[in-house]
């Protein structure tokens, strides 16, 4: 692919801005000279106001008339003025002289010299960086099918299908059972989503199904499964096998996985009477009783007697620390119990309904109103801890501790409803499989080895992905396919595949419909981006993609293993196969590669490596150390920019380079930096672990793992381990990030300068 690009002569233009106070604080002529003489830029120009129409035109003229194809803009941060400095068909690097230099340094005579040196280095870095960049262009092989595959025919799946179809995209729905609607098909009514939020309303499922079946862009397969899903966004190939029917293979641009949930198995809750008395039912089972009653009196299962009193036990087997129970809250059950209590109250206000809750949670805009409506209908709400349910005589004895009255109590009722949680139908836990496989290599696996709180419901794969990394979406916690829940809730770790509905997190019908709409929109984005050969997320619109030099590859598989998004497969000879439309462009593969053969057009081992190597390193006796800061462009770099905006000063010895993700940091950069005479290296990435903030999920974590082994490198160079530090930085760490730089400067003062200055 790379050789398809015609070799064009590199022509570098360096542009030095004098606006925003840069002209007063820095010697523009000096910086121009450095760009021209030292860094060897072909065209060097200064401008009083580079981002103005006139300044932009000056650059554009050079591109048009002088053949400049690589541009180093030495002005403000790369995060500023992106609209102005947006030139087609050229590679662009930015030297951060404003936020990174003059705003982060005091305007004093003493500071002037070090500030000037800092600016000079940023000019060198920008020119050297762009020298090793290629103007990015999309993969000419990019192609796309606009069809969207929806896995699951419940409310979430059908809503996603209808939304996508109405937006003009052909949709195929694959439903494993013989009917549409999932759990909702068995439900009587749903929680209201419109003011006045007072009464349960019709589920709306019939209309939804009718609309889907009537839509000419929607194809529905019942009793069907995905037996194989291969490819990448824009070009998925899915084998759809219909029970006792043919298997058809079809192409899809994106996939929405709305595989829903299973109820937690109430048989695990004998203490609450389930299985001992037929009058102890789950919420879902009560829906069936309500459907059977069809608006009349609900009858209890044991003897068909009309229910006169009912107790709802919230958090049954959930929000629990007990082994085999769900540790999380399923979110909808309080509202569902209120709704179900209304089934009774609306039919006959004299029926006694008691909701026994530990913490009542009524999320959503109408939640509080619905709760109030329940109270208004005289549903009793009791803050209590339920100890057990026993059948005795004609009724069920619910024993509990009333937490408001602080006493043990008991109520006798006709029916008990257990609010059991939702367990996601997310298929195979590919990480657990990987661990098991590792264990099996040593010894045959034993049963019961799974850790506490792990509930396995479905072990059958849902997507059957033909990915090297496993057949289903990776899970974050409790079996839910993970997503960046704050910034990108619909994303999974498989680009072009979007989880929607209760498989993503526990939810009710209203949330599931909203979720499905979001997922449909993301699927459409994925299709459109794949068609243009651009990154979908989070580097939306990025045309670059990883390529590798096959001759140098040692088939070590590290890139395929570490890619957080399963973008890299292997061919028969075990060489990596990059599926760039699956790729998020984080560069974790590039950071992983021990032989450094992976690169992007505009981001490579060389573009960063040359930038960091080509600064001016003063000799040991000048007492001017150099600290390399590799800062994640998503959180740490903006934090440092904001520190500059807030005039929070930090050491003039720092040289900050933004990286796409800490995962893209190749250890050679650390080695090169130390060998070139840097005195300290700081890596700033996002929070890792379970509550990760990393935009690429695992990049920061992988970087921390790699850096835990950097001590060997330091030892071989006889350097102190304190010289390299890795931190987790949040975008709000505006005070802390500069402080960490200053701390490193202090540390260096203590342990002394690096001996590697030549």
């Amino acid at each position, binding site marked *: 692919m790379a050789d398809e690009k015609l070799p064009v002569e590199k022509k570098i233009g360096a542009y030095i801005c004098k606006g925003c106070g840069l002209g007063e604080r820095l010697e523009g002529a000096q910086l121009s000279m450095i760009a021209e003489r030292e860094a060897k830029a072909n065209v060097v120009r200064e401008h009083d106001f580079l981002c103005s129409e006139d300044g932009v035109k000056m650059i554009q003229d050079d591109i048009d008339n002088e053949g400049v194809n690589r541009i180093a803009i030495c002005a403000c941060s790369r995060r500023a003025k992106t609209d102005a400095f947006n030139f087609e068909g050229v590679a662009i690097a930015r030297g951060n002289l404003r936020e990174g230099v003059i705003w982060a340094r005091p305007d004093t005579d003493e500071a002037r010299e070090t500030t000037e040196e800092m600016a000079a280095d940023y000019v060198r870095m920008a020119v050297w960086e762009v020298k090793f960049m290629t103007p990015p262009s999309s993969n000419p092989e990019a192609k796309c099918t606009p069809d969207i595959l929806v896995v699951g025919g419940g409310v979430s799946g059908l809503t996603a299908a209808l939304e996508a179809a109405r937006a003009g995209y052909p949709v195929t729905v694959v439903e494993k059972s013989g009917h549409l609607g999932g759990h909702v098909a068995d439900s009587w009514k749903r929680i209201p989503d419109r003011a006045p939020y007072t009464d349960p309303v019709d589920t709306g499922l019939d209309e939804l199904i009718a609309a889907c079946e009537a839509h000419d862009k929607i194809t529905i397969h019942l009793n069907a499964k995905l037996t194989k899903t291969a490819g990448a966004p824009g070009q998925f190939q899915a084998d759809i096998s219909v029970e006792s029917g043919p298997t058809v293979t079809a192409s899809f641009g994106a996939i929405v996985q709305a595989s829903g949930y299973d109820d937690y198995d109430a048989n695990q809750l004998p203490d609450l009477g389930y299985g001992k008395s037929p009058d102890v039912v789950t919420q879902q089972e009560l829906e069936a009783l309500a459907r059977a009653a069809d608006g009349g009196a609900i009858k209890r299962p044991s003897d068909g007697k009309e229910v006169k*009193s009912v*107790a709802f036990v919230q958090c049954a087997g959930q929000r629990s620390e007990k082994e085999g129970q769900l540790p999380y809250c399923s979110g909808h059950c309080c509202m569902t119990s209120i709704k179900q209590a209304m089934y009774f109250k609306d039919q006959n206000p*004299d029926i*006694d309904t*008691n909701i026994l809750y530990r913490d*009542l949670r009524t999320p959503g805009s109408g939640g509080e109103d619905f*709760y*109030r409506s329940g*109270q*208004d209908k*005289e549903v*009793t*709400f*009791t*803050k209590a801890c339920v100890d057990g349910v026993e059948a005795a005589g004609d009724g069920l004895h619910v024993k509990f501790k*009333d937490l*408001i*009255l602080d006493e043990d*109590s*008991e*109520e*006798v009722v006709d029916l008990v409803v257990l609010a059991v949680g939702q367990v996601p139908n997310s298929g195979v836990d590919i990480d657990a499989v990987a661990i098991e496989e590792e264990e099996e290599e040593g010894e045959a696996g034993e049963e019961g080895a799974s850790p506490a709180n792990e509930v396995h419901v479905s072990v059958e794969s849902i997507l059957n992905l033909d990915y090297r990394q496993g057949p289903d979406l990776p899970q974050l916690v409790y079996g839910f396919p993970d997503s960046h829940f704050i910034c990108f809730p619909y994303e999974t770790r498989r680009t072009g595949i979007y989880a929607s509905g209760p498989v993503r997190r526990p939810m009710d019908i209203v949330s599931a419909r909203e979720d499905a709409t979001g997922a449909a929109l993301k699927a459409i984005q994925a299709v459109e981006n794949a068609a243009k050969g651009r990154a979908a997320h989070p580097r939306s619109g990025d045309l670059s993609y990883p390529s590798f030099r096959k001759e140098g590859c040692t088939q070590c598989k590290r890139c395929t293993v570490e890619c957080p998004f399963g973008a890299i497969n292997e061919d028969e000879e075990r060489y990596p196969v990059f599926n760039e439309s699956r790729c998020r462009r984080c560069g974790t593969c590039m950071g992983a590669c021990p032989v450094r053969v992976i690169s992007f057009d505009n981001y490579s081992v060389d573009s960063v490596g040359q930038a960091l190597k080509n600064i001016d390193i003063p000799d040991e006796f000048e007492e001017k150390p150099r600290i390399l800061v590799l800062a994640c462009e998503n959180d740490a770099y903006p934090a440092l920019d904001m520190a500059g905006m807030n005039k929070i000063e930090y050491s003039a010895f720092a040289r900050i380079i933004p990286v796409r993700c800490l995962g893209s940091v190749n250890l050679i950069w650390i080695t090169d930096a130390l060998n070139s005479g840097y005195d300290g290296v700081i890596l700033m990435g996002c929070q890792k672990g379970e509550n990760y903030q990393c935009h690429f999920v695992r990049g920061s974590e992988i970087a921390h793992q790699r850096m835990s082994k950097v001590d060997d490198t330091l030892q071989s160079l006889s350097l102190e381990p304190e010289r390299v530090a890795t931190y987790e930085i949040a975008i709000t760490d505006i005070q802390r990030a500069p402080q960490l730089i200053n701390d490193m400067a202090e540390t260096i003062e203590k342990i002394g300068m690096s001996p590697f200055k030549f």
Partner: protein
Amino acid sequence: MSDMSSAVVEKYHNDFLKEVEANVEEGEWVRMCMQCGVCSGSCPLGPHWAHPPQEIFMMIRAGKREEVLTSDSMWMCTSCYNCIVRCPRGLPITHIMHGLAHYAHVLDLAPKNQPTRRFSKMFWDNITKNGRANELKLGLSLYFKDGFGPGVKEALKNKALGQAMMKTKRMNPMEFFGGHGVKDKSGLHAMLEKAREIEEAKLKRPAN
């Protein structure tokens, strides 16, 4: 009314709540309490109540009829209205407390010697006798509420104040002998008796 004093209600069923809603002033609000506890936390006398308002509301819903109606808690309310101002659900808590106290009194379940209840009764008897408050008698009956000895002691303690009030014509000692009143006392009494009858007729008996 005796059957109402000893009604049995089912725990955590709506029986007692419905009774309160039917018979207690503003009682229909009790169901709307969301147990946040702001009332209890806001009550200046809260620590002295056996059951702060939040608990009273839960006890009603738990069907603890006897405990609620025999409690002296509602009688502790000083009508500062802090709870009403702060209740996020807008419950007229002060009024409900007074309503509950009144209902307990009507059923004669309220604690006999609760000072607020005794004083309230004293005031009622005083003002309904002539249709006008007899301040001298009210003051005296308050002094002598615990017997003759303590009454004399209390009266002597306030001797100077009483004499000063008499000197400035703020208190008329002749009020001791009957005192002033409305023109048609028997009419007033008939009216009050009728009102009592109507109220009693309105009382709804608990379901069982």
